């Protein structure tokens, strides 16, 4: 699995091709500022995709991630600016809530889709109660942190690489990471080997909560104000990023670096469509089509290569 394989590189080839297309359409994009503009929107999505990847590693899907990110955005714009301590307390509480969701899904054997869909309404409802209409102000230190402009290499590029490295380290380079992935693909084997599946589930959901918070913070740096509906599109986009990055729905099979590349691909596809003057009305449909196409190609590849080599 870990050997360098042509197919594992697909999201990265795709990313390079898209960058070339963007530069071909808009030559001025090939510059420090150009890359800054192109990829700054990919950072919050890469955090969200990594969060989704942790849930998918557990064999689940998170349909509440979008409104969770929106709630973080609202907290950041309303609470963090005035009361740092309370805001931090709320962030921690939200991560604990994710851990509890994971334990609930595990202990009661509930489908994660329905639980997280229910949770999504709770996040949205709380966000609307705090902030019925867009307002608030994101602290400047948050904005400055995510708009960091180091010399030569644009900030977003560094952030994306860091997110990929962290995800890769946690799941692919640590011993417990293998246990975490294993719990998603074969919980029975993991628990027979003496590991607690409840614990792996709680940790994976907790990690998703942490990255969901980071996604909301970095999104706030872009929006600079609060809106409960910010991040609503992240449910599908984060799943798309994970899938384009090489992840599977069956649990355990994930590619952390690929998910980050997938996030950049998803954002760049939007940019290309905009450059081509495709109406924003068509963009969401195009995203759906791309997801279907990715999975269809994978299905064909699997069919051609004969047998599924899972497990």
């Amino acid at each position: 699995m870990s050997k360098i394989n042509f197919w594992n590189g697909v999201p990265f080839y795709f990313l390079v091709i898209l960058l070339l297309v963007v530069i071909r359409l808009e030559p001025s994009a090939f510059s420090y500022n150009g890359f800054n503009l192109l990829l700054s929107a990919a950072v919050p999505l890469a955090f969200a995709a990594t969060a989704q990847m942790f849930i998918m590693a557990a064999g689940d899907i998170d349909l509440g991630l979008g409104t969770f990110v929106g709630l973080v955005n609202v907290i950041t714009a309303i609470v963090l600016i005035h009361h740092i301590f309370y805001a931090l307390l709320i962030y921690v509480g939200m991560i604990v809530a994710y851990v509890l969701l994971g334990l609930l899904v595990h202990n009661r054997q509930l489908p994660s889709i329905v639980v997280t869909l229910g949770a999504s309404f709770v996040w949205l409802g709380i966000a609307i109660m705090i902030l019925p209409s867009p307002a608030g102000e994101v602290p400047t230190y948050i904005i400055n942190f995510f708009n960091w402009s180091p010399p030569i290499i644009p900030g977003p590029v560094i952030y994306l690489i860091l997110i990929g490295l962290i995800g890769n380290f946690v799941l692919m380079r640590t011993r417990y990471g293998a246990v975490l992935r294993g719990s998603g693909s074969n919980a029975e084997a993991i628990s027979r080997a003496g590991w607690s599946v409840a614990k792996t589930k709680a940790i994976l959901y907790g990690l998703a909560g942490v990255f969901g918070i980071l996604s909301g913070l970095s999104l706030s740096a872009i929006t600079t104000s609060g809106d409960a509906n910010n991040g609503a599109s992240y449910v599908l986009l984060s799943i798309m990023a994970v899938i384009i990055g090489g992840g599977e729905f069956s649990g355990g099979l994930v590619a952390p670096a690929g998910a980050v590349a997938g996030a950049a691909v998803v954002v760049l596809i939007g940019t290309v469509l905009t450059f081509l003057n495709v109406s924003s009305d068509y963009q969401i449909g195009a995203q759906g089509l791309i997801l279907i196409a990715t999975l269809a190609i994978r299905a064909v590849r699997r069919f051609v290569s004969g047998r599924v080599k899972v497990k």
Partner: protein
Amino acid sequence: MSTTSDSKVTLGSKILNIFRTQRALPAFVGSVIIWLLTAAIAGRGLTGTLTSSIAIGTFLFFVGIGQMFVITSGNGGIDLSVPYVMTVSAYITASVMHGQNVKLISGLLAALAVGIVVGLLNVFLIEIIAMPPIIATLSVGFILQSATLVLSTKSSGIPSPRIFINLATGNVGPIPNMAIFGIIVGIIFTLILTRSSYGRAIQGIGQSRSAARLAGLKSQRLTIYAYLISSLFAAFTGFLLAGYAGGPSLTMGGNYQLGSIAVVVLGGSLIAGGLSNVPGIWAAALLLTLLITLVNVAHLGAGAQDVVQGVLIVLVLTVGGTKRQKD
């Protein structure tokens, strides 16, 4: 001493047993409580609240029946395309009818066509490409959303035909037409689920695909029908809701994605599939509709409504569980 405590235990376990076997009962009881609470806070409109809630709840009931067939088929079956199908169907039928009374039947046929096309698309992705149902129906939903956005710029502001609005919002005596229609459809689908071979078979494959296959059931074909039923109900409900509201709108499907799943769960059907009932869905749709009224009457705002709905579904799932009836 011991005899009295024994009898208490049996009484308690009897009540528990009733709730365990009559899985639709909590939704009915909950509806009554919220109904009385709403009327008490508002101080008026005891019967009016009930009849209008039953009428409005009918839309949720219909998409809930469709969702129920998909969920019952098991294997993680779920249809997230419901709200998008509703909206696209509302716009397509509006542009087909163009506000003319004589074209009401063409509108209905267009809605059914939308349902069949979307249902087949969902089934193709799930059964042929082997996409997980969530992702397949969500992707299809987003494609439909784009289609709706494009359509809405061309056919916005077309009112529904007069005769259709009158039918959908009319009354027979004190009872709204929609309430009567909903109950009739409910009885038909109760019979389909409990008495027809299809209804028994779909619950069978939901309980155990392998056992059902050994019994000679064709699970793939049964699942295809389930997704078709769901899309047909969603498309028909979108058509109907546009008639009820006087015309289509972009946000009309909004609450029906979680709503359609919530009523199935609250109604006592198993989210894992294999055990479902229609009356529970009806009561749950009524409950959620009354809940919205209650939130409005109590001036709690849209946020509180979302929180209550979300908490309710997670709570019922937690209490109700999925792996069930081992005894």
